[in-house]
């Protein structure tokens, strides 16, 4: 029973990597786990969720009404992108970069559209990782 769970977890991780949801940074984090710290990655990812909820909320508020402070929007997204990068959330990170490009172009509609994409990728990843960690335990 245990081995099957492990196999499923390994298979899911492989799939997440192949489909580009995660990159090698996630693997690097798993390499930092040991018997004394078996849930390190899950703990880091939980922090990521907490931080992300805050970033998303703040960006959402900033996107609501003009005048739009693109430098501030860019900076907030930069922080979100940083966290995403730190856990290997590749697709989320990509969307964040695109958002920053729209900020540079001062294109508020572009920003808003891409932001939906950011939230979607984040939600998808969160669901998949929750499944993964359940298998792992």
């Amino acid at each position: 029973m245990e081995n099957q769970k492990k196999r499923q977890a390994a298979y899911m991780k492989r799939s997440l990597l192949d489909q580009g949801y995660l990159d090698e940074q996630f693997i690097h984090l798993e390499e930092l786990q040991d018997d004394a710290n078996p849930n390190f990655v899950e703990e880091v990812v939980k922090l990521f969720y907490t931080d992300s909820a805050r970033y998303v909320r703040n960006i959402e508020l900033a996107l609501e009404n003009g005048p739009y402070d693109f430098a501030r929007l860019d900076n907030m997204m930069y922080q979100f992108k940083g966290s995403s990068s730190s856990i290997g959330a590749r697709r989320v990170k990509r969307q964040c970069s695109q958002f920053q490009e729209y900020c540079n172009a001062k294109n508020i509609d572009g920003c808003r559209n891409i932001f939906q994409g950011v939230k979607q990728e984040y939600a998808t990843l969160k669901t998949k990782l929750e499944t993964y960690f359940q298998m792992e335990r």
Partner: protein
Amino acid sequence: MEMAQELHVLAVDDSHVDRKVIERLLKISCCKVTAVESGTRALQYLGLDGEKSSMGIDGLKVNLILTDYSMPGMTGYELLKKIKESSVLSKIPVVIMSSEKILPRIDRCLEEGAEEFLLKPVKLSDVKRLRDFILRGEGDDNKETEKNIEQVCSRKRKLQDDPTTQSIPSPVVTAHDIESSPESQQPLSKQSKIG
């Protein structure tokens, strides 16, 4: 052959995620870690108003400051400047971390006296390399090779993980402890977290 000392690293980063990761990287590399969330907290910890030595408020000498570049309030660059301008703190090596590889920024930091500039996400190999570099600098007759340091480190870690041979674990003061202090002049209280 024991390592002459464990390095004490002050890590500065406003991101919870990054603080947790850098803390883990440093612990694996057998360093004591104090993690704070801002340059202001870092300077408070180091006793900006003039300790006689580069001691943290808990009396542990700081051997390395590892700081993020982009932080609200005081940037890593501004923190670097303050440290290098201080007669008391200027000898402490400072390493800057950033997720952006902006050459003028890197140049500016190195010119201001940063030891190195690391690209995020920081890897275990980066941290180990830093540790070895600092250890070589810290000891007068420190002839320990990197291989020795690594052997001693992994032996220490095995002892820490084995509950039957529990020595006193390295204290880790996390940002949670320091963050919980109010913003006033009250001295920051130190709390050691085990494990």
